[in-house]
């Protein structure tokens, strides 16, 4: 019995220590400058590797999600005789919720896991130690540009996801189901607010971007330098960031809607 209590306490202490280490990593690597700091080119290279290379999955996924939304929405709205609201429904769902959330989830799976594995392997093969001994701070050189690349990429990816999704919705609604295209687009244009819908969705995406990338770089940097350790860290990245995205989404939505 006492043993179980003790192991529970141990888990608690370990998680708090881990949060502390993650916090230190974040504060030390969020600012630019320092020994052997990364340059603008490193940032561009990282944006290419985490952002640009996630484009294909984001665009394909966005298109399908938009198509499904339109199909489901049409079949529900037609019962109430209000199919003209379909454009509004598709666009608001995507801009406020599905765009940021799904883009961030896909980003965590596609780019977050890759970041963790890359940094974990750099650690296991002593590349980070070697960098330190050359007088280059790996936090500034390796972590900082990756962290910022994620923060910059996720909102852009989320916006693209929503845009492509709205086109996917139009493709199903207008071209396949025969909805009048003026109804789809003009109702959307009339109801979507720039600040309340677009900007708030982008704020969500930015928060998810920070959290996912932070989790990914921390898991890699803190991984045990063995093949097993890196495997575990990669899994942790995907699991923890998915849960964090969904949990934070609720909190952010509640704050933005002013309800609850």
């Amino acid at each position: 019995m006492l043993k179980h209590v003790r192991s529970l306490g141990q888990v608690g202490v370990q998680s708090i220590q881990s949060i502390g280490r993650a916090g230190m990593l974040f504060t030390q690597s969020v600012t630019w400058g320092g020994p052997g700091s990364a340059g603008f080119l490193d940032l561009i290279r990282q944006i290419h590797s985490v952002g640009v290379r996630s484009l294909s999955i984001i665009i394909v996924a966005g298109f399908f999600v938009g198509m499904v939304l339109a199909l489901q929405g049409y079949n529900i709205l037609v019962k109430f005789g209000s199919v003209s609201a379909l454009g509004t429904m598709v666009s608001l769902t995507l801009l406020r919720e599905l765009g940021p959330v799904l883009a961030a989830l896909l980003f965590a799976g596609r780019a977050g896991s890759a970041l963790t594995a890359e940094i974990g392997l750099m650690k296991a093969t002593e590349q980070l130690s070697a960098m330190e001994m050359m007088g280059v701070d790996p936090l500034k050189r390796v972590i900082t540009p990756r962290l910022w690349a994620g923060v910059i990429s996720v909102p852009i990816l989320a916006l693209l996801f929503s845009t492509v999704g709205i086109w996917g919705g139009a493709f199903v609604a207008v071209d396949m189901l025969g909805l009048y295209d003026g109804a789809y687009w003009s109702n959307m244009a009339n109801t979507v607010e720039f600040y309340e819908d677009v900007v708030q969705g982008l704020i969500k995406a930015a928060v998810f971007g920070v959290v996912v990338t932070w989790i990914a770089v921390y898991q890699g940097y803190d991984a045990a330098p063995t093949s097993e350790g890196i495997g575990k860290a990669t899994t942790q990245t995907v699991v923890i960031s998915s849960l964090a995205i969904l949990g934070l989404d609720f909190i952010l939505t509640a704050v933005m809607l002013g309800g609850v």
Partner: protein
Amino acid sequence: MSDNNNHVEVKDVTFYRGKRKIYDGLNVAFPRGKITAIMGPSGTGKTTLLRMIGGQLKADSGEVLVDGSNVGTMSRGDLFELRKNKMGMLFQTSGLFTDLNVFDNVAFPLRTHTDLPDDMIRDLVLMKLEAVGLRGARDLFPAELSGGMVRRVALARSIAMDPELIMYDEPFTGLDPISMGMILRLIRGLNEALGLTSLLVSHDVEESCQIADYLCIVSGGKVIGFGTPDELRNGDNAEVRQFLNGDPDGPVPFHYPADDYRADLFAGEA
């Protein structure tokens, strides 16, 4: 500044790894401009010692002085400055950047720390690569190199900034005789040409005795012998002689403590 001719001084250092005591009042000084080989049984913390000198690990008590300044209490900025200008380290697994080719690996410290124009960096890198015989391999990536070549590239990279102190962690492991001879000549040659202080962690008694000016034998958390290879070979410390000659029996037991062998075998039949 250090008042004597020692580049690195370790004073009364205690170091714990978890609960296990690795060093207990370690005292040793490494002379400037010489090659000192740090040797000892596996698991005595030879790599730990190098990492303490490099400031990657901090001693639990005592001082590690490099050029008279205490590495353990230095600010992060000063430590990086010291590593940048005065130290080089060759890691066991080399630590080459796998996303950069040989040329860019060697150029990395120069590009990061200096504002030299590209053509000058090119000349410097080619000079370092020529010294390790790999000028022709400049466009290859680390994954395309053999173990010995990787080690040589890493060596070229660690001398890129012309350090005063260079530390080699197991430079001979897993090398074929030709690469081994090559690395030996390089270490000796660098030491003579540039007047470096070299610290070398190794298990290979023969090779280390060939190039080292001094041997430092570490066992049980303390230095049990320090001197030239000849002095130690002919000295009266039985533990040191056993290690240098590779005798299975002596003060250091080969067997992990166990019950009587015969009794143990028969115990399984009961």
